């Protein structure tokens, strides 16, 4: 109880300090040159309802490629460091509740569908590849928790990841030849503003990013799950 009160005091103090800092903060009202260009020309050039998406996928597409690569490296390093011997001992676990298994059987397809919905609609709604990928990976967590006997194959995840990564880069290179530059989205027609098939290649690119992120995060979860019970 005393410890909790001290924690509460510390949190309140931190909140006060942050409030103090925040109230003294004055944001930069004007946009600088680059931001101004994105804000004024972005909508007409890219045709995505969500301006953030258009910046992330097209103007700063190369950065997104870098981020995906970092995730890939993390997954690869984890798999390398925690490389398990195949003679791992199955520890005695409590049997999962029957109700949880049934509920996850019902909910899993729906959660996968919601993840896919988030990254396909990335150009219209807040959301996108990374968020959708995270939802896919959380569905994978539910799968691992509820169906303990089920083995998910690394090979399948690696295959999805490789295919979507290659497709992402190929789409980017296609942009150099058919349109203005790397990851230019106007290789497909821009379509009607606000519909699912609009904003050129953005939905396609975002789908590949979402699949890649989902596969990478799931790989990380799988590796951690398989190594936690191994003896030192």
């Amino acid at each position, binding site marked *: 109880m005393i410890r909790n009160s001290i924690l509460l005091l510390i949190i309140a103090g931190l909140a006060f300090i942050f409030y103090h800092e925040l109230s003294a903060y004055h944001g930069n009202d004007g946009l600088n040159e680059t931001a101004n260009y994105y804000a004024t020309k972005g909508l007409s050039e890219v045709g995505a309802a969500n301006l953030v998406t258009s910046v992330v996928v097209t103007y700063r597409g190369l950065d997104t490629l870098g981020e995906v690569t970092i995730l890939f490296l993390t997954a690869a390093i984890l798999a390398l460091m925690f490389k398990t011997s195949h003679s791992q001992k199955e520890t005695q676990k*409590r049997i999962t*509740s029957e*109700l*949880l298994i049934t*509920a996850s059987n*019902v*909910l899993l397809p*729906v959660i996968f569908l919601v993840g896919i919905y988030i990254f396909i609609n990335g150009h219209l709604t807040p959301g996108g590849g990374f968020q959708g990928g995270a939802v896919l990976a959380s569905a994978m967590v539910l799968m691992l928790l509820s169906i303990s006997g089920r083995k998910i194959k690394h090979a399948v995840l690696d295959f999805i990841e490789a295919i979507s990564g290659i497709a992402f880069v190929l789409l980017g290179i296609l942009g150099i030849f058919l349109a203005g530059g790397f990851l230019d989205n106007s290789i497909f027609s821009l379509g009607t503003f606000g519909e699912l098939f609009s904003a050129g290649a953005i939905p396609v690119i975002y789908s590949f990013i979402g699949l890649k992120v989902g596969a990478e995060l799931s790989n990380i979860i799988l590796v951690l799950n398989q190594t936690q019970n191994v003896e030192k």
Partner: protein
Amino acid sequence: MEYLKITGAVITLIGAIFILFASIGILRMPDVYNRIQAGTKASTLGSILGLFGIGLIHPDWMLKLLLLIMFVLISNPVSSHVLGRAAHYIKVPLSDLTLLDKLEEDTGSETAEKEGDK
């Protein structure tokens, strides 16, 4: 049309009141299991009523809100069941008011054996 909206708002208000009851219950009940009881029931009905009321105010959101209601109805009781099961497994004590515990009688010998193995 206006009546429908006011009905929706009142339903939402009732939902909020149930959520308030849930929080009072979670504060006053003597042990984990009773808190789960109070928390799950009232918060499920409260948030369902809140969603439904907003659905009456904005009829074009209704389908999506019904999807959300279905999700809450399936997931919330299951998560509280999993929590209660975990609490009983790690032997969180029941309150002194508790009269009988049939689950302990039936599974108690099993867990005692497991502890003997260690």
